[in-house]
């Protein structure tokens, strides 16, 4: 097809450069500088999509970000496919592949178009009403059908093949929008000596000036003024200019989110990121976001070929495209006359200008009349004809009292409408600035700002070019001054005086037909009509927020850019309350749809989240360890031999530790060095235990509560010297514990001389456990006697292990003779490998976290977060022996004295469980009851906290929290599970070596 609707001259397209593209597989061509929409129109194509609910054929309505209809999927392959792009914003490039959406099998023949015939049965809110049917009707009938029928684009079928960048930026003045107001603001801010960022969503700066063919500014044509101004800004050196960059969100304290589109407009496989997220913190912001034209609401106002008047003018003057042969214009605003004149000069026949106002007057009206265009004052539109393209408009006289006369069909292939303009207050409103309703303008405009921002030009209702420029300059100067710049003298801009414009209409036009029989669309993208809004109000919804949600008006991807004011206008008519009282719905980010990719940025794949690896990680990996995630750490869970499953591997590891020795990587334990003259006193106040009398060289199990008396963390603490403690925490609790300690140190006990340092990453911790642990370790130790007499259980010594300085702990989390060897992290792997090799003749095995869990559970040692859940006291966990009873205070002590926390209350207590059938392993989290025959709701006595197969006992075992559990030892309880009830006997929580003999080997 060959651009039959391209004008012979004019526009900013490059006529020397033809661009080939496909739309729904059809090959077409356009010119460099086209958007997909302008190229389609140049080829005479208005039909661009099917509507969301009724599958009505829809055409290109606008020429910008507000486009509700012409949504397309773009991308040559699935890895580069993006759905729901506005054809009006997609830049044309060689080889562009675009497809229409929500149609099957094709745009012209869509079987779901049947929805358009049954529309009476699917009014607003029908979706909610389907919930009133039995549940089966929703899940089996309504939901699958609604999902199949409704919708916009489809998700890509392959992962995103592109990359995204992110950066932060600071500036003195951020100017959003580079139309005349924004450009003038940037000029002023630069003159005030400020660092400026100027961004605009389009491919080139200029905004409305890009389609300005008449005006001159300061004596030169507007387009020349534009290029000179851009050159001036570029040469200033203090302006960062960002094109193809949408300011999508206004966040607190003058931070704005911008998305810069870097490669989507380039042909072929682009190098570098597709988009860049800018998070800009600006001292001052100037919003110059412009305005958006409103459609008129009349029956069948949505056929292809029906367009906003201003958009048609942009296509003619900026893109050199004739959007039709014969146009009817329906308007309530003077600007449509300007569009009519522009199209008339481009060779479009003007069949009629129907103005709903009784007596339109003004410069543009006069010019149109002078040109001989047929103006019909006091004229409305009652309907349209045509299926895939509009073929006629029904125009009828509109009397002052609102009665509509007999209609006359006027044939046309282009129907333009203008209901006036809505200032783009989205970002201002997002910043929590108050909007005020301007009666004269018929629009919400920015009122008092909540942030350091200034609003300039059309987005606050200024429309005349000379005033827009002056307003922009003044706001730019104010922003520069407020940001700390020098004063900038006021500047005026001489423009050839284009006539002023006025007028506007919000609501539904009178049409004189039975309202039940027509559909006049308000929200094109969500297919909601004037009738839907009236229905919502008649069903009792009053708040505009409720009406919005019930009818979904304004809830599509365009967020009601063109529809909100008309919806308000209809509501104000029906409710007989002024718009100012009804108010407007809340504007939310993003201004236009934004890719998930740009938010994810670099955080994908391996970089999705921080991964912490121990010094022994790669050794374990080479041994074939299976890893699990514990907070951000990767921990070896078990080390399977060839052919072993987890159960077999864990059973083998457990037997080896109990019979010989095992080596375990405990480097992930949190470690905090607590140092200072008051270190012991500080720990006295933090932990439940008494620390003052702990001698250097000794270890103690420490228990940490929250101030409410419940267990927060635990760990072994070693006293290295009078003033130095080596504190260990749980793997997941390290940061939490340090933060809490710092909090008390800084804010509650500032008088204590104590310093806290995280040393988690500094130490590798090698646990060597089992009856042969000492004989394996002994040859490596220099400078210490590790015999039982010299180094009993719960002691620590500084020495050298394998030649490396070490803090050697004699400690056990398995119940066996054990050591934990702390060495500087960089030596961790070398020491580990040396010990592992030397231990092989003795039967040493590496074991993982699963075996560690089984072995500690056999001993009844708790895991914080497994046996505890934030409601467990020390006594509940059987740990009241740890509490230093003589201490006046520690964190949580006062709470333990509250009623309900201690004696005389049937609290849940830690016990052991043995199933009657030793082969049955309970599920962790399973509930315990006394009477399995009790009808629900059953009396639940507690739950299983840990449950394992024990190779040592050759049977299953479990730990549980059970109400009054210690008094129930010996009792039988029941665990109801799907299809069966499991009988269990309550025991003490220690299943292995209750006397603790094995701790000494």
């Amino acid at each position, binding site marked *: 097809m060959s651009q039959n609707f391209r004008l012979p001259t004019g526009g900013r397209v490059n006529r020397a450069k033809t661009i080939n593209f496909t739309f729904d597989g059809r090959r077409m061509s356009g010119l460099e500088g086209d958007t997909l929409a302008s190229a389609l129109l140049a080829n005479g194509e208005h039909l661009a999509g099917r509507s969301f609910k009724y599958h009505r054929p829809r055409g290109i309505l606008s020429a910008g970000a507000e486009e509700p209809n012409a949504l397309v999927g773009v991308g040559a392959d699935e890895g580069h496919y993006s759905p729901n792009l506005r054809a009006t914003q997609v830049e044309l490039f060689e080889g562009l592949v675009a497809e229409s959406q929500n149609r099957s099998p094709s745009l012209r023949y869509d079987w779901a178009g049947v929805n358009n015939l049954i529309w009476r049965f699917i009014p607003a809110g029908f979706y909610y009403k389907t919930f009133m049917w039995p549940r089966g009707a929703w899940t089996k009938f309504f939901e699958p059908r609604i999902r199949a029928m409704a919708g916009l684009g489809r998700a890509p079928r392959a992962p995103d093949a592109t990359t995204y960048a992110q950066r932060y930026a600071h500036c003195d003045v951020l100017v959003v929008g580079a139309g005349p107001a924004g450009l003038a603001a940037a000029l002023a801010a630069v003159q005030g000596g400020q660092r400026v960022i100027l961004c605009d969503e389009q491919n080139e700066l200029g905004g409305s000036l890009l389609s300005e063919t008449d005006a001159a500014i300061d004596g030169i044509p507007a387009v020349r003024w534009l290029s000179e101004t851009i050159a001036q800004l570029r040469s200033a050196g203090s302006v960062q200019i960002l094109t193809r960059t949408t300011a999508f969100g206004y966040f607190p304290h003058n931070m704005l989110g911008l998305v810069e589109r870097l490669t989507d407009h380039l042909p072929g496989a682009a190098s570098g990121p597709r988009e860049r997220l800018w998070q800009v913190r600006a001292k001052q912001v100037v919003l110059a976001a412009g305005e958006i034209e409103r459609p008129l609401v009349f029956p069948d106002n949505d056929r292809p070929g029906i367009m906003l008047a201003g958009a048609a003018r942009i296509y003619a003057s900026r893109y050199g495209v004739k959007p039709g042969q014969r146009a009817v214009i329906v308007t309530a605003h003077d600007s449509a006359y300007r569009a009519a004149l522009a199209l008339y000069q481009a060779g479009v026949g003007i069949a009629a200008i129907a103005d709903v106002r009784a007596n339109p007057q003004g410069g543009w009206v006069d010019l149109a009349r002078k040109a001989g265009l047929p103006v019909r004052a006091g004229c409305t539109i009652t309907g349209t004809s045509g299926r895939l393209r509009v073929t006629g408009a029904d125009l009828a006289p509109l009397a002052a009292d609102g009665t509509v006369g007999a209609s006359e069909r006027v044939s046309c292939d282009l129907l333009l409408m203008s209901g006036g303009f809505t200032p783009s207050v989205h970002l201002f409103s997002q910043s929590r600035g108050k909007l005020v309703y301007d009666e004269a303008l018929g629009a919400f405009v920015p009122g008092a700002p909540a942030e350091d921002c200034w609003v300039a030009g059309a987005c606050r209702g200024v429309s005349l070019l000379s005033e827009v420029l002056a307003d922009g300059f003044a706001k730019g100067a104010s922003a520069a001054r407020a940001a700390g710049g020098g004063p900038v003298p006021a500047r005026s801009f001489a423009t050839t005086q284009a006539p002023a414009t006025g007028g506007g209409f919000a609501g539904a036009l009178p049409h004189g037909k039975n309202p039940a029989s027509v559909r006049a669309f308000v929200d094109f993208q969500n297919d909601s009509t004037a009738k839907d809004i009236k229905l919502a109000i008649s069903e009792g919804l009053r708040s505009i927020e409720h009406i919005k949600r019930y009818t979904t008006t304004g809830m599509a991807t365009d967020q009601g850019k063109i529809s909100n004011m008309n919806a308000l206008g209809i509501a104000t008519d029906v409710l007989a309350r002024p718009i100012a009282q009804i108010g407007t719905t809340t504007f939310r980010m993003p201004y236009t749809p934004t890719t998930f990719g740009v938010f994810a940025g670099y955080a994908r794949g391996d970089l999705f989240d921080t991964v912490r690896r121990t010094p022994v990680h790669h050794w374990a990996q080479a041994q074939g360890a299976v890893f699990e995630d514990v907070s951000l750490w990767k921990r070896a869970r078990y080390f399977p031999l060839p052919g072993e499953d987890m159960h077999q591997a864990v059973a083998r590891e457990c037997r080896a530790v109990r019979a010989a020795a095992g080596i375990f990587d405990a480097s992930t334990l949190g470690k905090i060095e607590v140092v200072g003259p008051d270190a012991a006193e500080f720990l006295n106040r933090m932990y439940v235990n008494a620390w003052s009398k702990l001698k250097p060289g000794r270890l103690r199990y420490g228990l940490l509560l929250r101030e409410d008396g419940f267990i927060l963390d635990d760990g072994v603490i070693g006293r290295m010297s009078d003033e130095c403690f080596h504190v260990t925490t749980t793997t997941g609790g390290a940061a939490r514990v340090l933060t809490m300690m*710092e909090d008390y140190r800084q804010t509650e006990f500032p008088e204590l001389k104590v310093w806290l340092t995280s040393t988690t990453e500094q130490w590798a911790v090698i646990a060597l456990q089992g009856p042969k642990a000492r004989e394996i370790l002994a040859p490596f130790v220099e400078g210490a006697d590790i015999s039982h007499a010299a180094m009993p259980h719960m002691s620590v010594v500084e020495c050298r292990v394998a030649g490396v300085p070490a803090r050697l702990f004699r400690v056990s989390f398995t119940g066996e003779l054990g050591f934990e060897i702390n060495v500087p992290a960089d030596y961790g792997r070398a020491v580990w490998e040396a010990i592992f090799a030397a231990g092989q003749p003795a039967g040493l095995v590496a074991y993982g976290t699963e075996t560690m869990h089984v072995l500690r559970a056999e001993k009844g040692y708790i895991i914080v977060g497994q046996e505890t859940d934030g409601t467990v006291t020390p006594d509940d966990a059987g740990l009241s022996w740890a509490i230093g009873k003589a201490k006046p205070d520690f964190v949580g002590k006062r709470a333990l004295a509250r009623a309900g926390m201690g004696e005389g209350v049937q609290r849940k207590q830690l016990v052991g469980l043995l199933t009657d059938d030793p082969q049955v392993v309970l599920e962790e989290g399973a509930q315990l009851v006394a009477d399995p025959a009790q009808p629900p709701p059953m009396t639940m006595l507690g739950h299983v906290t840990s449950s394992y197969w024990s190779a040592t006992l050759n049977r299953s075992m479990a730990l549980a929290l059970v109400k009054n559990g210690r008094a129930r030892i010996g009792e039988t309880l029941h665990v109801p599970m799907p299809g069966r009830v499991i009988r269990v006997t309550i025991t003490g929580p220690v299943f292995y070596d209750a006397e603790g003999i094995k701790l000494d080997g």
Partner: protein
Amino acid sequence: MLLITCPFCGPRPELEFGYAGEAHVVRAQDPREVSDLQWTEYLYQRSNVRGVHAERWRHAHGCAQFFNALRDTTTDHFVATYRIGEPRPDAAVEAGR
């Protein structure tokens, strides 16, 4: 993202900070002296104000210090930030300057 003025380091983005709850909730000098009810209030009762709220922040990824701030919960604007131990600045005076 909020811009928070650490009293030690100056204005920094919210990312560097951790929130630490209401400020000026006093832990009794000797908790044994207070009643169960008073302790319960210390543990759980918070003012949840609409308007200027005194709260604690920690410059976790900076100087690691806790400090106090007055923030208007209706606007998210900070009225003042000040060091632990300093008295709460008069909110009205701060707001007016």
